[in-house]
């Protein structure tokens, strides 16, 4: 297990040093400074073995966190713990910086004592920690016996991420479906590879211990329901509406509040949410992706010193929606001497330092198209190698989920308090962004 945990500033000075195991000595602190921080190279591996001691390190701004061990620990767990440690510190005092760490070193020691025992990670959910690590020392003495046992049962309990007794006057929740769509398309418009990686981020401001159930248009669930429902209303799901009914999800992972065995057996997503903002799930899809933009390139070489480029972009979504922050990047050869650009919409500029024409459009509605044409003058070279023609890349943001994911419902049940699912104010927002969105030319 983890033998010790050190935090350094960028100079390699120790800000926090907590040793859990006898086999880790003070010299380990220096070994890391000398061999990793002062080595000043690019980090070649996040795990370094120095004199039979292993150092796991991550860097946040210019602060180094290093976990040290001499045993065959679970490496994935150590990194997950270090990230968690960063989350906890951020939740307590904001940004991880030298100043903040020095200002809160007593708190950090207290946290380290609690969330890592003999090198074994313990409950590290901030929701629970904040109930008893408060930096107001004396509180422990004034708690009633009930309060104390409530704390301990929560810390060790099944719902370690949420404390009891949360109250809001307005029960409200926000769901953000954030997707990044990636594409590689051939010049002829054939999709070579496309995938969406998405996240569902939830902000919950709910009283008590609400039981939530999240539903989306997951193909497996819809198909199952479709089968069950055929006796009553055959074909309803096909007629229900336009567009895609359901989507095939390649893989998804969930926050630890979600009951995984239930998902595995019934594919239903049920949970008691943490309070505040957290990431409910992540997912990947590769089938039937709505590609918000299509890029149609046309590059013609006119003699040896001139290139004609014409690029058309077509927006492929409902006309009522608006895409934003559109940027098209058209690479130019290294021996470009001058560029003339004409575009119908937005602004376009040749950026010599980036070897590209950058075309920006603030907004664009669906089912529209726009065009740019450019004449590129080239310097004659005797370089025999042909220009490799890097792909045209695109950036944008659209107000829908390119995977086709739809939130069908998020039901909230809290039997002990007198508010019902109807009283909860719910907000859902979809944002699709470009990941690596490229078209070869």
């Amino acid at each position, binding site marked *: 297990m983890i033998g010790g945990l050190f935090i350094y500033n960028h100079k390699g000075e120790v800000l926090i040093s907590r040793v859990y195991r006898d086999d880790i000595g003070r010299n380990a602190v220096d070994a890391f400074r000398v061999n990793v921080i002062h080595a000043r190279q690019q980090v070649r591996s996040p795990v370094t073995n120095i004199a039979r001691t292993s150092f796991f390190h991550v860097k946040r701004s210019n602060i180094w966190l290093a976990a040290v061990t001499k045993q065959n620990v679970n490496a994935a767990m150590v990194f*997950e713990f270090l990230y968690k440690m960063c989350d906890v510190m951020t939740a307590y005092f904001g940004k991880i910086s030298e100043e903040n760490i020095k200002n809160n070193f007593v708190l950090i020691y207290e946290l380290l004592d609690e969330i890592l025992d003999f090198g074994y990670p313990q409950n590290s959910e901030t929701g629970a920690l904040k109930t008893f690590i408060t930096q107001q020392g004396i509180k422990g003495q004034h708690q009633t016996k009930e309060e104390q046992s409530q704390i301990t049962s929560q810390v060790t309990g099944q719902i370690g991420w949420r404390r009891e007794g949360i109250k809001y006057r307005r029960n409200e929740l926000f769901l953000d479906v954030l997707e990044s769509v990636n594409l590689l398309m051939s010049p002829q418009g054939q999709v070579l590879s496309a995938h969406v990686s998405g996240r569902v981020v939830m902000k919950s401001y709910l009283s008590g211990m609400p039981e939530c159930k999240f539903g989306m248009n997951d193909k497996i669930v819809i198909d199952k329901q479709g089968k069950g429902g055929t006796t009553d209303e055959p074909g309803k799901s096909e007629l229900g509406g336009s567009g895609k009914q359901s989507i095939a999800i*390649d893989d998804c992972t969930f926050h630890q509040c979600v009951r995984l065995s239930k998902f595995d057996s019934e594919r239903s997503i049920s949970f008691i949410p943490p309070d505040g903002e957290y990431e409910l799930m992540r997912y990947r899809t590769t089938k039937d992706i709505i590609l918000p933009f299509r890029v149609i390139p046309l590059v013609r070489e006119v003699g040896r010193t001139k290139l004609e480029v014409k690029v058309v972009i077509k927006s492929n979504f409902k006309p009522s929606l608006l895409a934003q922050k559109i940027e098209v990047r058209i690479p130019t050869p290294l021996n470009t001497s001058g560029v003339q650009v004409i575009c119908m919409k937005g602004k376009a500029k040749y950026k010599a330092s980036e070897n590209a024409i950058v075309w920006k459009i603030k907004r664009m509605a669906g089912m529209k198209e726009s065009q740019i044409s450019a004449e590129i003058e080239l310097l004659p070279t005797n370089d025999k190698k042909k220009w490799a023609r890097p792909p045209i890349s695109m950036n944008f943001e659209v107000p829908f989920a390119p995977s086709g994911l739809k939130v069908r419902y998020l039901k909230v049940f809290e039997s002990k308090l007198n508010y019902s699912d109807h009283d909860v104010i719910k907000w859902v927002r979809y944002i699709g962004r470009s990941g690596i969105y490229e078209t070869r030319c």
Partner: protein
Amino acid sequence: MTDSKYFTTTKKGEIFELKAELNSDKKEKKKEAVKKVIASMTVGKDVSALFPDVVNCMQTDNLELKKLVYLYLMNYAKSQPDMAIMAVNTFVKDCEDPNPLIRALAVRTMGCIRVDKITEYLCEPLRKCLKDEDPYVRKTAAVCVAKLHDINAQLVEDQGFLDTLKDLISDSNPMVVANAVAALSEIAESHPNSNLLDLNPQTINKLLTALNECTEWGQIFILDCLANYMPRDDRESQSICERVTPRLSHANSAVVLSAVKVLMKFMEMLPKDLDYYGTLLKKLAPPLVTLLSAEPELQYVALRNINLIVQKRPEILKHEMKVFFVKYNDPIYVKLEKLDIMIRLASQANIAQVLAELKEYATEVDVDFVRKAVRAIGRCAIKVEQSAERCVSTLLDLIQTKVNYVVQEAIVVIKDIFRKYPNKYESVIATLCENLDSLDEPEARAAMIWIVGEYAERIDNADELLESFLEGFHDESTQVQLQLLTAIVKLFLKKPTETQELVQQVLSLATQDSDNPDLRDRGYIYWRLLSTDPVAAKEVVLAEKPLISEETDLIEPTLLEELICHIGTLASVYHKPPSAFVEGSRGVQHKRIPARAGSGESAESSDVGQSGPSEAPPAVIPSQGDLLGDLLNLDLAPPTATVPSVQPSMQMGAMDLLGGGLDSLLGGDIGGSPSMGAGLGVAPAAMPTALGIAPAVGGVGMPTGSYVAPKTVWLPAMKAKGLEISGTFARRGGIIQMDLTLTNKAMSVMTDFAIQFNRNSFGLAPAGPLQVLTPLSPNQTIDVSLPLSTSGPVMKMEPLNNLQVAVKNNIDVFYFSCQYPLSLIFVEDGKMERQVFLATWKDIPNDNEAQFQIKDIHLNSDAASNKLQGSNIFTIAKRTVEGQDMLYQSVKLTNGIWVLAEMRIQTGNPNYTLSIKCRAPEVCQFVFLCYELVLKN
């Protein structure tokens, strides 16, 4: 108020001042002082002198202050054992505190005070805490047992804490269970043979229940513990797998990886034909891909593990090549690992894409990455034969860039390509020689010298080139020196007249002027060889080299199995067993994968380190070097003068491989055949006389039908002192023949021909002597047909259809290898019953199915099936569905293996789709090649 000011106390006499403050009456001042002490401690100052003063502050009701004092205690108690006793009372008292947080704090801290004298005082409080009513105290006490065990193992055993700890596995609180499991696992590690973690189906069930309820960390402890369990049978194994799979959707990558570990391990026990086995394989891929979207450090851990998984079970990720393509903003350590996995996944199907990527990477900025990318291109060439030519031309392009390290790396890999495909790409030697001067790294210099020595006869100025290296002989690294020595000796053996002086020079440099024993020894060996028996020298130095294996850096199978048991841990990141980096007794135990049900090995057998399943990957094959040894030792003089000993165990190993454990496949008669011992030395008497076909008529007049490839040169005259052999294989009316053309290009008459084969995949052996009755005079050519039998000794070859041949004449013995079309061993009674076909097709697992495209065939289905029948590929049934003809075909090999095929022909489409199924999937590729050969000719 901020605490950062405590870090800035650097003035002199601060210890004295702090002492005064610690003894102050004011609580606030005391607290401030302790904070200062901790800050000093953090930055590494020795504040142990304040021990009594700090401990005095321990008796306080301020929890924060108490925690700070404890922190100090943990750090310095060891250096002040006598005074540490002072703290005992407080601990004992705190363990009785009504507040569970305080009780837990006390028990947590006292375990960290590593002073022998104290420990015995702690037993009673610990015992109470282990049975505390509050789960928070119990879960802390559980860990405390592990702490105490670390200090004084005997005490823990004597006090019976281990039993209490075991009881906690049945605790109602999942977190207590998780911590108890963690503590027990750790203690068990230092007692390898204790039955401490007595895992039985009941406890396993408890653990699996707790798994659903505890924190992410607890889930990791439990999964890591589960991985050490040996299920009783495949049913138990499956039920555990079923309950572990939901964890693959956890957001915590460590939970996912630990679950993968359990599944990878227990999967071994499931019968492969089980539906669930296939389901499980499919379930593993998506979460592994998802791990690649985690933070870079975790990606690194995941990639190192995927590297192992891909070696163990390539099928899991074989379609996921694209996710391993390098992104421009990946950290370098992620890039390097991805590159490694790309090569492991490279196959004929995706090689074009991979090569395009690699070429891209070779122009990046990071030197290590570029080098690795160049090396990867070479590895692709060796792994995927069809791509070799493309790879070589890509490497040549890269050499043209003249970027120094790219050139050097390219030369190193080209050397390997030469080794793999001898006599194929020599045309590039000239380009390589142009870059001789720019090589400054030993490995590249050595590679270049090797190339020059190996192909000395093709390079006009080889002697000059080598001589130029000789000038700075003593400044070269050992690697280069050794290579140079060998290369010059090779050169001398090839061109003795012009290079006598050179060889003298290098031998004296190596033997007299060098103090490196390796170099001296090698020098002396060469010297003596050359002076006593130049012919022997030639045989040794210019011997045919063993082929290099496809994948050069595969992890050795037993280590791989062990590492699979350590998925997620440091061992899997380092790719080393824990004993290589962990001190002491911990982790020295070797973990192993359970054996598959029915493989004959008892799952409970306890011999540690002996790793299990009989279906180990190809390492069982005796290395190619041994093969060569066999051939070299062969005495070809008839009859059997020296017979190389054939070890039955080796045979069995090879058999197992081909048959994948299904012994029946490779013809059971091999093991029992009495002729087997005689093996390679087939006496003429043993030849069935009926097969003695007059050699002159050989090629003509036979009932043909099967396609016979034109003859190709197998043994060039240059390599065989003027004897040129070209040949081909044919199957005529059930008789296998090797048609040879021998040409004497030397100046003297050749006589006394004899031929011998090395052991090979299908037991091909000459069924009679080589019928060259008249001496072969210079410039004469003779055609010979040699009948072959399939009753020779068997050993799996790489590639499968490789045949190593030795031919002897009055001058010398020559060796060459050639490859026969697999249709050679398709037997005439290979037509399967329809019903049997149907059943067999279903019976063979889908994993064994291989799909191929046969392009540009302009035959209708009937013509194709006629043509194939000529080569003993029989069409059993034909079905037409929507303009598509489906032909169902069967083939039987001489050793009894059945190959089933489905060929789809679409009218108007010249490309046929061929699906081949066989219990020995290795043969599919070769069967496909036969189809192609037959249909195209």
